[in-house]
């Protein structure tokens, strides 16, 4: 590998009001390398990427590409310099077809007067042949979040770029798609394209990247070759202390109880799932695993009365409940944490405090129905501190927080009502290692206190590390269950894809690994 420096960041600083997001940061990217970027939530990773892509302007500092000083005033400018960017937050045009979304940048740069739709569709189909089967003619608004994430990736892959930035692209992806992506990344790097890869998952970094830079509190801490260090070193420099146990201890045999606190029987939904029955025992954390589109989210939403045309029977502490709406569900203490934080998890332009009390405002109000501001603020501070929320003023809007911290606000909202059963759909998406282990610890504590915890996650190590038992969902039914030592990635993947019949996916998945 030649070690020519393609991109060099020198002493870049950026503040948002009183928040210093970046403090005189240095960073360099070599030609053809996959360079990982790690750091806690709010460390400034996305901010730096936004500066490189011309979305934000630095307050001070310089950027060099091929040793030449550049000013990048807009994404259009960045494109001309050969920079491609997959954003942490999905930004696609919902009313436009997948194909047009993917080639939006080309359309923009194109000199031809007229659109050539069939050409776009053919090329889009080619891209997806490598990635995952998505029909290029569908409107983006009809896709699930994970498929939208794939479209985002496809969009970046088609750019004719020399620097590709991927900001937590795998947060919404399952193992399978992630592996495909890594395959593609490696082949791109082999052709001399440099990749900046942001992730909170150490395994991904150590399996796929060449170097890793660590950021903390807006400052650059270290850059090392991954072969020279261990994941613990990275976590150490990220958090500034040693995190010994990434996952909290599981249920011990003594703690095991046969008492069933929550039971779902014969759940069916007209199009998304059928014959779903499971029980949750006291003190255990249950996981849901499966491939993209398997229907995990739909099951959770269906049970909570949020979506779908659902039939089934529900028992909480052996009492049969009838849940017709999410309000009934909340009234019984059953809540759902959405996987789509920005879309339906938080109120971006409202204050942190108002976000946290949204699930049940009556908790922070007087008997006459008026909000007690002090109570609302102290509830928010308390939960925020408990989740280690990195924030400005508690009345600032959620839009001023980094992605991971927004996720913490969404979780704080769930905890505010002291729920009985929580469905957490991708609860640690975009959350840093430190906070993630905090969240895991909190979940474990809650389950000890008797709260039922059901975690949906696309990250297999998380499910294996956290859960006591994992149900594998396959095409809308429960495809199997693993527990104890049988909880391995291989077993889960096997159960998840056993009936997987899509030839394209199988073929490319194998090709990607080869």
């Amino acid at each position: 590998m030649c070690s020519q420096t393609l991109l060099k960041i020198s002493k870049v600083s950026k503040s948002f009001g009183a928040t210093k997001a970046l403090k005189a940061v240095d960073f360099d990217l070599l030609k053809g390398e996959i360079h990982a970027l790690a750091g806690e939530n709010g460390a400034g990773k996305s901010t730096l990427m936004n500066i490189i892509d011309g979305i934000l302007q630095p307050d001070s500092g310089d950027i060099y590409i091929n040793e030449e000083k550049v000013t990048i005033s807009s994404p259009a400018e960045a494109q001309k310099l050969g920079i491609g960017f997959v954003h942490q937050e999905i930004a696609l045009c919902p009313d436009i077809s997948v194909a047009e979304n993917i080639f939006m940048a080309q359309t923009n740069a194109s000199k031809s007067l007229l659109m050539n739709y069939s050409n776009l569709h053919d090329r889009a189909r080619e891209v997806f042949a490598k990635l995952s089967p998505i029909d290029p003619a569908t409107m983006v608004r009809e896709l699930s979040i994970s498929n939208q994430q794939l479209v985002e990736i496809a969009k970046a892959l088609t750019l004719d770029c020399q620097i590709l930035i991927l900001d937590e692209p795998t947060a919404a992806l399952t193992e399978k798609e992630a592996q495909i992506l890594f395959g593609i990344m490696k082949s791109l790097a082999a052709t001399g394209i440099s990749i900046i890869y942001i992730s909170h998952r150490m395994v991904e970094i150590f399996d796929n990247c060449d170097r890793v830079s660590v950021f903390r509190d807006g400052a650059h801490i270290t850059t090392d070759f991954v072969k020279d260090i261990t994941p613990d070193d990275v976590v150490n420099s990220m958090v500034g202390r040693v995190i010994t146990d990434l996952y909290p201890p599981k249920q011990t045999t003594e703690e095991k109880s046969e008492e069933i606190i929550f039971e779902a029987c014969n759940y069916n939904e007209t199009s998304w799932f059928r014959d779903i029955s499971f029980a949750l025992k006291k003190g255990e954390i249950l996981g849901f695993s499966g491939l993209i589109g398997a229907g995990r989210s739909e099951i959770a939403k269906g049970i909570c009365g949020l979506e779908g045309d659902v039939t089934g029977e529900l028992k909480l502490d052996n009492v049969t409940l009838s849940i017709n709406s999410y309000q009934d569900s909340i009234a019984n203490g059953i809540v759902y944490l959405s996987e789509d934080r920005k879309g339906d998890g938080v109120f971006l332009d409202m204050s942190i405090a108002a976000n946290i009390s949204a699930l049940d405002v009556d908790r922070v109000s007087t008997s006459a129905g008026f909000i007690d501001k002090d109570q609302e603020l102290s509830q928010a501070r308390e939960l925020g501190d408990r989740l280690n929320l990195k924030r400005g003023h508690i009345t600032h809007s959620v839009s001023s927080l980094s992605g991971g911290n927004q996720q913490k606000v969404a979780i704080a909202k769930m905890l505010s009502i002291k729920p009985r059963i929580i469905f957490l759909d991708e609860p640690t998406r975009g959350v840093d290692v430190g906070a993630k282990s905090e969240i895991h610890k909190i979940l474990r504590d809650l389950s000890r206190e008797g709260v039922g915890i059901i975690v949906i996650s696309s990250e297999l190590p998380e499910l294996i590390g956290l859960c006591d038992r994992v149900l594998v969902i396959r095409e809308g039914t429960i495809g199997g269950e693993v527990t104890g030592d049988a909880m391995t990635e291989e077993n889960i993947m096997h159960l998840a894809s056993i009936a997987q019949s899509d030839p394209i996916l199988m073929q490319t998945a194998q090709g990607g690994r080869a």
Partner: protein
Amino acid sequence: MSNAVDSGHRLAHEMGFISRLRRIAAMRETALVLIILALFIAMSFASPYFLTWLNMRAMAMAFAVEGIVVVGMCVLLISGGIDLSVGSIVTFSMVLAGWLFLQGVDPWTASAIAIVACAAVGAAMGYCVTKIGLHHFIVSLAFMVIFRGVCLLITQGRPLGLFTLPAEFKFIGQGSIGAIPVVIILFFVIVVAFDFLLRRSTVFRKVFYTGSNEKAAAYSGIRTKKVIFLSTVLCSTMCGIAGVIYMARFSSAPPYFGLGMELNVIAAVVIGGASLQGGTGTILGAILGVILLSVVTSSLALLDVSSYWQDIIRGSILLIAVIFDHYMNKKKAAS
């Protein structure tokens, strides 16, 4: 440890007097009060008649009843909706109550019926929006046209003369308690009540959640459709109340009343800081918005500005007010 210290610091800072003062200074309401004050000072130099009791009364009477509609519109805009039909609904309320009165119905009963009818119209609009799934803009546009027609039909195109309304009823619109007109007292009570409710009540907080992110609100267990439905009904009900007060004030029900009221009312609410995207806004701001617009109109009339220039100046003031406010807010965000 350092965590606790840190949050202790933060607490102290949040409670601080200076920070509170700074927050007040950065508020949109403060900006509006300053603009209005500046206008008052300039006007009292420009015209000796400006700071007279008669002129103040005339100016207050000009916006008081419309202010009640502004309250309804403000809530609706916060919920993420909009209502172009307010002018027609106000007129419908006047015309229906007036017509019933002429048919021999007691004016109080007639008024109650008219207000309920307006609420029902709001419910119909709310139904179209929440159950059918249409957009507020287009639904209320259709209702604006339909109810203008209904008003014409009821009145056969001519203003209803309601001179025979009993004095106790006219008192609402024309009487005074002490030196202060009843209309202004009513306006004041409604504004203060709703300002408080919107800031503090849990019920109205749900309007903010719904307007800010309807889906997130639904995922927080809020019956967002109900919230939107009720906000629509509230706005129409306020129109109904305003209509009845107008009837008492004018002893008349002209079918062509309130033309263009919707734009004035929406402009006021937006000047007052509400976003057309929903989720933000205050009653106080909206009322200051309507006061600003009204004071400008009145000042121009008082100064005998050529009518050709009045529109130009009024439009420019609207523009300048939003630009000014925009920069104020930007500065606030930056500091």
